[in-house]
């Protein structure tokens, strides 16, 4: 049941990817409209899988990296569709849809871990911590994608290169506003994730801060975003510098999300969620 739903999600996301890339190349309006619908359909399937998994195992499925990717894909698509409703910047879909499709592919490719799930995952606090962090990640991923588009379009305009990308990408002002908007949503979510996490750590481990690699990297990313937000609000930083900083922040965040699990031992490590019997 759940794997059938995952495949449906995957098909919808890949279909949306094809439509959106088609839109990017051919600039046909109906491709983009189809892409939105298909992405929405994928989100419905994705939501159903998550509900189904949570229902059967009794906790949000984040015990393995693969499962977490499924939740992350859900957060990314949800954030994108919400953003699209307020800020219809179409080209963003051409990066979001393939990213979501790859994440769900990751879920299928990575070995489903077996073992006894750490009871910590069943805690409501921890679930809130994870959802906030992943939604924050999703919004900041979109800020990162907007930043990339900004840099590309800015290069076209500075170098007076009016070709393929110049025609397809929206105006600098729109891309910058998109970056800012995603930041103002993603930053509070990330902050909330950190706070709930540290409160939970105080409750269970007896201290707010563990100097865990994932914590350190996340704090670093948080600081980068804090500087960016501060400079944007006070000095009026924008454009290229803001885009670059958003990209930096995202790279650190990615390292925290992926790297901390692969390279360092940490209590955030997925391996620690599943005790081999």
């Amino acid at each position, binding site marked *: 049941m759940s794997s059938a739903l995952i495949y449906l999600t995957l098909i919808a996301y890949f279909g949306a990817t094809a439509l959106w890339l088609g839109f990017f190349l051919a600039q046909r309006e109906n491709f983009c409209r189809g892409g939105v619908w298909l992405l929405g359909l994928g989100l419905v399937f994705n939501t159903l899988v998550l509900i189904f998994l949570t229902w059967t195992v009794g906790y949000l499925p984040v015990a393995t990296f693969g499962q977490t990717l499924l939740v992350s894909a859900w957060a990314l698509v949800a954030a994108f569709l919400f953003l699209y409703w307020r800020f219809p910047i179409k080209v963003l879909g051409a990066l979001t849809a393939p990213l979501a499709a790859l994440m769900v592919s990751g879920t299928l490719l990575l070995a489903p871990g077996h073992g006894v799930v750490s009871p910590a995952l069943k805690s409501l606090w921890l679930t809130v911590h994870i959802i906030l962090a992943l939604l924050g990640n999703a919004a900041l991923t979109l800020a990162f994608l907007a930043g990339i588009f900004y840099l590309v379009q800015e290069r076209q*305009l500075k170098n007076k290169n009016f070709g393929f990308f110049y025609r397809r990408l929206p*105006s600098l002002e729109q891309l910058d506003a998109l970056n800012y908007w995603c930041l103002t949503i993603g930053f509070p979510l990330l902050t909330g994730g950190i706070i709930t996490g540290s409160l939970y750590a105080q409750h269970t481990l007896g201290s707010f801060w563990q100097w865990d690699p994932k914590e350190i990297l996340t704090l670093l990313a948080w600081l980068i975003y804090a500087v960016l937000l501060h400079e944007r609000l006070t000095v009026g930083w924008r454009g290229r510098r803001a885009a670059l900083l958003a990209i930096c922040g995202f790279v650190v965040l990615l390292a925290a999300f992926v790297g901390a699990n692969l390279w360092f031992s940490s209590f955030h490590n997925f391996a620690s969620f599943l005790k081999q019997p």
Partner: protein
Amino acid sequence: MNLVLLGLNHKTAPVALREKLGGLLTDLGAAYQELQSHPELLELVLYSTCNRVEGLCATEDPEKAIGRMRAFFSNFPEVTPGELDKSLYLHRDREAVNHLFRVAASLDSLVVGEPQILGQIKEAYRQAADSRATGPILNRLLHKTFSVAKRVRRETGIGDHAVSISYAAVTLGRKIFGDLAGKTAVLVGAGEMGELALEHLKSDGVGRIIIANRTLERGLQLAQRFGGEAVSLEELAGQLLLADIIISSTGSSHYLLTRDQVKGVMRKRKHKPLFFIDIAVPRDLDPAINEIDNVYLYNIDDLKEVVEFNWQRRHQEAAKAERLVAEETLKFLEWLETLAVYPTIISLKEKADRICEAELKKTLGHLRNLSPEQHQALEVLTHSIVSKLLHDPIIFLKRQHQPSRPHRELDLVRRLFNLDPDRNGELTEEE
């Protein structure tokens, strides 16, 4: 039914001749009245723009119609027949439809893709319809023309790419600011190109306009024209704080603004983007200004490159549009061909009615003592037998009619029912 299009355009006729003919066609009402008095011109539309004068007619007798139209054009005493003959082109049927579609889609224009031509043809059609010069064929053709032109505009990028320097500046501005509404534009120095660019910016919604000119008087004049404010050239650096778009076209021999001047102001502007357009030669603005973050500087050569590039794009899109037009032309011709079946259907019905009447008369002559009801029943019976019998051949004509072999079915039916008694011999000869 045939279509004939006669006309001349910017490629075939010098402007003097186009002017003369265009001027003579100003009184279209009279022209239609004169032309409609000739029965061979069944339906007619005339249109003239600064680049073309053309007449399109639907006729059953194309040779006579062509002669009539030609005579109409050369009848003007101001036009010498020699120069007219050299310039006139003639398109028939498929070419006529294709030509009209191309004209309306702006593929035959001097500036390919310019948007005015469609409106001009619409207006010409309205006048023709008002003069009752059009009929079912041209009405359908012209409406099809409008939808083809719109389809071309929608599905190809033929009108998308700015092909004038001043308009190219506006499209660049849109890629930087997204929306120009509420932005402030400064024109430095007066000059035709700068004013043209300002005109485009204004129609694109630029909020505030400031003119900085060496002579304040000329500046005030321009400010009045554009509904803006005038400042002196010395105040230019101060205006940088408020401006978003700066168009410079002075005759100054040195740079009006340097990199450091602009860089100094950026922090105070909170790094809001600045867009400089330098259309002066020698240049007014330090090229190094382009290196500053959030500042974009374009000089005349950059803009020329945009225009050049856009011309190429437009021609590529035009090729796409030509394919679309060819496709639509075929569709229209298919419809036109189906019209050809109606005379046959009518003569088929007429023949059947004649037979009915004759046979009824004969039979009723024999039967004397019929009540009116019986009389009527007999009539109904005859007619319904005939119309049921004809139903299938008529459907066959309407449905089976294939444009690839336009006259085959038609001929078959005409021969089968012997609708052309004088052609009787053919049947036996061929068999």
